[in-house]
């Protein structure tokens, strides 16, 4: 079989947020960068955004329920504009975030998008992952690698602010604060309040402001409230001992602040006003989009600078999350792939990590640890496949790798008797030999995929797509499902 060294795949990112929905289509170039008979090393060498959709207001059938059918129509429209059909799309992800990230919504969207999502698109959500994708899409992650500086990216959207702290390209801390530009709605370009969300009510109370829906408000009245919210956003960067308001607005545990923050990037809808030369001066300017986003952006900028943080301009503002979702969700890996054509793609493979510290040194020990974890998660009963995630063998000797193989076969005995495929995800560079050992030790040919040099911390599920590059690699998407939050 002729093996090409370069291939391109189409990836789509769909971001369904509290206020807006958008999608981005990217062309990813993947190459085998090892030469000749070196062990193949496939990586993504280029990412080109080829289509940015319009930014739509998230269609809602009710205050909190997304109109899934309307969303699928948006996707259909944008594909048409881009000149693509679902069959053209190889991979990608849908991210459902903010206040709309509720169980009912996710299920509805997944169902509605099933046909439009192409052969391989998965639903993923979760505040932490959203912050990470935003930081990757905005360029914060890359900045932290190139400049060796710790960067925090805050994606300030309609309902929430999602933080991700990057150190040498890795997201080391995340959190989410319930502050966004859309928490109070207005008549567009007017000064009359049309909606006050719950978190906004808390902020108003804290600022000593009493406001009702229908009231008119002046800029001097609004500013202190928005300032207070901006201060909360900044306080999360400064300290772990926070004000009552900040603590009330936090949706996840706050940042541990274990690294000194060198730079701050702001992405999301509000970001354009953070980097503007001057802030809004009239209510009309503030409520241009029917919310107070422009004022929040400006006050945030002032607050960050006063607190001594250095702002860095991101590559992407509004589209950071969706671009991150579309381009950064794909990992490529694969060392030993013994699967039949029809087995892939595998979706929602549950990841189990039976070894918290060092691997036991006997076959029985390894088998037992795996069996216990499978039992604990009731994995044997589940319908889907299970992926065994581990750092690697005890040491990289052949003896220990073989021992690990035998232990895995023992531990997965019951699972394998159901003729389910064996999926292994290892951090160490030994996928091929481990796969070979498993085959040699098994008493019958197994369906197996053994992926190495991939870290799967804090991840609940993975999706494995159809092989690429002449069968050398498979795309793997790591995900946490919204249900588990």
């Amino acid at each position: 079989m002729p093996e090409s060294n370069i291939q391109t795949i189409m990836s789509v990112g769909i971001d369904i947020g509290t206020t807006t929905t958008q999608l981005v289509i990217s062309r990813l170039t993947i190459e085998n960068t090892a030469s000749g008979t070196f062990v193949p090393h496939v990586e993504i060498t280029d990412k080109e955004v080829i289509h940015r959709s319009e930014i739509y207001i998230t269609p809602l059938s009710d205050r909190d329920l997304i109109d899934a059918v309307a969303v699928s129509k948006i996707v259909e429209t944008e594909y048409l504009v881009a000149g693509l059909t679902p069959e053209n799309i190889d991979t990608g992800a849908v991210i459902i975030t903010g206040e709309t990230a509720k169980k009912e919504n996710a299920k509805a969207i997944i169902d509605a998008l099933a046909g439009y999502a192409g052969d391989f698109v998965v639903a993923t959500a979760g505040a932490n992952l959203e912050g990470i994708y935003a930081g990757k899409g905005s360029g914060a992650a890359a900045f932290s690698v190139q400049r060796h500086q710790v960067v925090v990216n805050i994606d300030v959207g309609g309902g929430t602010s999602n933080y991700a702290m990057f150190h040498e390209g890795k997201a080391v801390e995340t959190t989410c604060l319930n502050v966004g530009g859309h928490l109070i709605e207005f008549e567009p370009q007017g000064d009359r309040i049309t909606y006050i969300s719950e978190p906004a009510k808390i902020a108003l109370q804290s600022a000593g402001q009493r406001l009702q829906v229908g009231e008119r408000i002046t800029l001097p009245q609004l500013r202190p409230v928005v300032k207070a919210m901006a201060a909360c956003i900044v306080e999360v960067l400064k300290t772990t001992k926070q004000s009552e308001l900040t603590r009330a607005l936090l949706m996840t545990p706050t940042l541990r602040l274990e690294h000194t923050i060198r730079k701050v990037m702001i992405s999301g809808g509000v970001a354009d006003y953070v980097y503007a030369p001057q802030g809004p001066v009239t209510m009309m300017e503030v409520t241009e989009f029917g919310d107070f986003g422009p004022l929040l952006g400006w006050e945030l900028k002032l607050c960050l600078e006063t607190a001594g943080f250095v702002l860095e301009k991101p590559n992407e503002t509004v589209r950071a999350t969706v671009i991150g979702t579309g381009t950064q969700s794909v990992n490529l890996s694969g060392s030993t792939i013994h699967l039949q054509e029809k087995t892939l793609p595998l979706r929602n493979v549950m990841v189990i990590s039976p070894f918290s510290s060092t691997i036991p040194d006997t076959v029985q020990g390894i088998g037992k640890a795996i069996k216990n974890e499978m039992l604990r998660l009731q994995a044997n009963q589940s319908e889907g496949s299970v992926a065994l995630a581990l750092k690697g063998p005890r040491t990289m000797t052949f003896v220990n790798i073989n021992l690990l193989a035998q232990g895995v076969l023992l531990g997965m005995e019951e699972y394998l008797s159901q003729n389910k495929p064996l999926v292994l995800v290892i951090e160490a560079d030994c996928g091929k030999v481990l796969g070979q050992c498993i085959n040699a030790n098994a008493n019958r040919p197994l369906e197996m995929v053994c992926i190495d040099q991939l870290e799967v911390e804090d991840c609940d599920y993975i999706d494995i797509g159809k092989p690429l590059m002449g069968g050398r690699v498979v795309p793997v998407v790591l995900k946490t499902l919204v249900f588990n939050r």
Partner: protein
Amino acid sequence: MAVANNELEKVIIQSVLEELAKKGLLPSKGKDHVMSSASQDTPLYSNTSSEEMVTFPPLDEMQISKPFNADAVKAMKKSTPARIGIGRAGARPKTMSWLRFLADHAVAQDAVFLDVSDEFLKQNNLMTVQSAVTSKDEFLTRPDLGRRLSEEAVKTITEKCEKNVQVQILVVDGLSSTAIEANIPDLLPALMQGLKSAGIKVGAPFFVKYGRVWVQDPIANLVKADVIVSLIGERPGLGTAESLSAYMIYQPNEKTVEADRTVVSNIHKGGIPPAEAGAHLSDVVQQILTAKASGVKFNQQK
């Protein structure tokens, strides 16, 4: 705490002597210190039961004083084995950098100049034959002899080795005995397992002492194997004396040139880990058997 006691004693003695000296009560001989007990071979305050020893500090230690961006230095050092971020004393390297360089050189020299131990060969069940070379010095200066077999080797191979196999594996010391001892125990079983699983007929591997790459050609002719795999020690760099290469060739003859050999190099724990390399090589050998070609011809077919 023997050391501490000695230190304390030393301080006390010294201060007493200083006092005596001040008062002019010491003879000029023992003037300022306890010199007289310094006998020829025993140091004055030796640690009698010392398990302390001097070692090199870890490689990731920060050696630049007052770095502009310590994180950047650390990341850069991690990204390459090159000796960067090592600081300076004036325009010269720091003492530890220099001594580490010397140690790496010593290790490389030892790798070249020492032989694979008999014990290792026994543990790994490897029969030994020797090339036409008779000493390590001759090996280094006479590559032509390293490419030929000794008369005794020809006899041994003819008598003892299985003929007409598909694959024959050779373990060759080449320019680094250390590489062989470090990698073969994990590489060889992985390679053998892969070939066996694929149902390939493999002759028992053996060791060629003072061998060069091309010694695989005369051996192929004696054993009549389709593919010969030589696992051979690479010339050591400083500090990496463990790198091994695999040279594979399909049915060599007198017209064989260098371009006919397929090479996988940099096999060691810091490169391609040996066990993983074994599995990979098993794949490559199978591909060569299928293609009935190796080297450039093999690449062209892919």
